């Protein structure tokens, strides 16, 4: 949770493209946003007209027909078929129009162009993971500008919903099935991405960023990102792996409990095992625990961790070990 709040603080301190929107709506940062907003403005116009009409008539009637001493009310009809049909039929025509505008725009938002760049999205409590065609996994959604992007969503636990206000898109990520949505970003910049379907404790912190890269820069970012083991210091790369490769779900970094032991102050400590023996948590112990988790079960925990043999490369294991070393308190 601390981690998530930290991210929220980071978001708060970043000048987002988000804030360039109007008083009413966020900025129109996707190609369909302007169409959606047009439908919005149309409905707004209709609603404002009828609301002002109703309230004005109400106020006029209150003033004009307020009871006056000794004045009997004038005769008025109890019904009028013509009048009542009028205020049934006109609204009917208007709402059919609203339906038609809403539907046609929606279909454009549903059907992705054939050449769209595909990114797989996984929702889980309480983060988004974006998997790129080359296997790179990122916590934020990086996309190129002016290229249609199709997101294929699923969830590994409960229902989540991916929501980017600046793009006017929202789609549920449902466990056990795939859903999809698409967009084409118009302006480079950073935009907020929310979880919109209630998913428990940290629902409101399940926030990511959409980073729209300028022409030509997305490929460069992709190359660096996929290559982060070689470009980042090992401990920093380890932080990243900790978040995206599933460690964080069970091992806390602040000393709190979980399915597995916390990483805080782990390195260099003596660890009591279930079989009664004690082992020093050095590089080899951690390496063994990652690649053969059943070898040393820590006292007080169940043997539930899957093996990462063949899933993590040697450099990646090294990076994670370096990261765990940084969690020692001096």
């Amino acid at each position: 949770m601390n981690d998530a709040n930290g991210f929220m603080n980071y978001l708060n301190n970043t000048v987002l493209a988000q804030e360039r929107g109007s008083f009413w709506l966020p900025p129109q940062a996707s190609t369909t946003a302007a169409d959606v907003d047009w439908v919005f403005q149309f409905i707004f116009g209709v609603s404002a007209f009828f609301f002002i009409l109703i309230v004005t008539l109400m106020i006029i009637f209150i003033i004009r027909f307020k009871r006056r001493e000794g004045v009997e009310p004038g005769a008025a009809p109890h019904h009028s078929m013509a009048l009542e049909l009028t205020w049934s039929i006109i609204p009917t025509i208007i709402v059919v129009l609203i339906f038609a505008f809403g539907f046609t725009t929606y279909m454009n938002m549903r059907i992705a162009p054939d050449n769209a760049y595909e990114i797989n999205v996984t929702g889980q409590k309480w983060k988004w993971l974006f998997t790129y065609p080359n296997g790179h996994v990122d916590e934020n959604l990086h996309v190129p500008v002016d290229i249609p992007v199709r997101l294929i969503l699923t969830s590994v636990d409960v229902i989540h919903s991916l929501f980017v206000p600046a793009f006017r898109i929202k789609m549920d990520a449902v466990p056990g099935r795939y859903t999809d949505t698409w967009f084409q970003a118009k302006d480079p910049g950073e935009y907020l991405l929310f979880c919109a379907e209630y998913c428990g404790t940290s629902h409101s912190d399940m926030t990511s960023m959409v980073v729209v890269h300028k022409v030509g820069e997305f490929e460069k970012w992709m190359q660096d990102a996929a290559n982060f083991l070689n470009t980042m210091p090992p401990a920093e790369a380890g932080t990243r792996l900790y978040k995206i490769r599933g460690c964080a779900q069970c091992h806390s970094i602040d000393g709190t409990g979980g399915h597995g032991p916390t990483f805080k102050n782990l390195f260099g400590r003596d660890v009591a095992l279930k079989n009664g023996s004690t082992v020093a948590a050095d590089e080899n112990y951690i390496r063994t625990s990652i690649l053969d988790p059943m070898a040393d079960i820590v006292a007080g925990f169940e043997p539930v961790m899957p093996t990462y043999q063949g899933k993590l490369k040697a450099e990646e294991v090294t990076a994670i070990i370096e990261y765990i070393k940084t969690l020692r308190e001096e």
Partner: protein
Amino acid sequence: MIASTTSPSTISPATNERADNYLTHKTGILSWLVTLDHKRIGVLYLISILFAFFLGGVFAILLRTELIGPGQTIMDNDTYNKIFTLHGAIMIFLFIIPGIPAALGNFILPIMLGAKDVAFPRLNLTSYYLYVIGAIFALLSILLGAADTGWTFYTPYSTSTSTSVVTIVLGAFILGFSSILTGLNFIVTIHTLRPPGMTWFRMPLFLWSLYGTAIIQVLATPVLGITLLLLIIERTLGVGFFDPGLGGDPVLYQHFFWFYSHPAVYIMILPAMGIMSELVSTFSHKHIFGYKFIAYSSLAIAILGFLVWGHHMFTSGQSSLMNMIFSLLTFSVSIPSAIKVFNWLATMYKGSITLETPMLYALSFIFLFGIGGLTGLFLGALATDVHLHDTYFVVAHFHYVMFGGTLIAFLGGLHYWWPKMIGKMYNETMGKIACLLIFVGFNATFFTQFLLGMQGMPRRYANYHEMYTPLHQISTIGSYVMAVGFVVCAAYLIHSLFRGRKAPANPWGSATLEWRCASPPPHDNFSAPPTVGDPYDMSDVRFDPQIGGYVFKTQPTP
């Protein structure tokens, strides 16, 4: 036993001095707890739902206080999630759904019909006790740590969270039976106990709306019962209906749930519209305009309301074809609501309008329900719903409909029938002040939430981005203003119980039957079935300054 409806003398002030009314007919706590009198059951319901409203309101104030700034203010995320679940579940299942039909409807429906009671008095008491048992289960869940699922209990979250989901779901399941039995009772009562002369089209419009409501209660609520039972079975026995891990389908739950819960929205709003028709006509002192259109529109809403549940699921991944159909059907249900609003306005035209507290609530309703209904257009249209779904726009929309609509009409109805129910008048000035506070506070609280939602603020967030802070703060301050309004309202209503001026039989000048019997009504309402005229013929009443109320010019003959 009295003969109040049979001779002119009985509507004289002397009638009101009679010792025997339903409040004094029998005494002792047991005479209330096992009463079969619909009026006493109505009062029991009223006390219960007002208690539920108080609880739900306290939770609402806690939520708004937490949201006064981003980050943690007074509670952590888990507590916030439990409190918004309790706020929603209590307000929906314990207050709004039974609010108008079971409390006001129980009291007024038989008297409006000129009947002595509902068709099945014992069933009526049973449904009250089912309500109490359901409420106990729902509140018991708080002691067991409270559920954190939201009032919608969406799977697979509700089947995987470790909180006390089963208890509160069981509570909602039992409350469903209470609702079904009340609906059944009302349908039979309206069909069989109308007095001679009261044809369907001479029924007051409040009864039409209760009839439409009862149909939904009887047809839709069993689906909720089955759904909640499946949820309980899945949680306790691990049978996979909804959890994909067990081979189930989580979206199926949403279909089941909204198949009830969307019609339930009309269980909540239809009786409110019925009250509106009574209030607008009475305080315009004029015949209701377009009686048949209003009556038929109640039925149209009841029927069309069954066909639109899928509009809660436009972003759930359901097919575009289904989204298209549900969007179109959703717009169809807006027409009958529009008709009613225009007919109320036409009723005011050339009326002789007085602005007592119930009428102020009726005017607030037109204003607030106008906004609530029109903002529904943004959510029915597919393109805009995708952006607004699950944001504060939706929160604001349904509060404008449920609170600005149903609750405001409930308050209007409560003030309107309070003299009839209690036999005392409340302080009119205080009534107007409270109404104004609630109206201003309400708009400050919820109009800001439309703006938050348009800007993309998702609902059910304990924490939020700093850019949303100013609007959240206005919203919170608005909720405090509203709370003050409700405290004032409670204070003068309680005060009136002890110190209120004695109420005349017909303080407002209405022409429906309940105003023909004394305030408060005698035990058996009418000694003989009264004959019935036009329920909105306001020329039939005239103000009598001597008794401070209205008297009927003509006396019906039995």
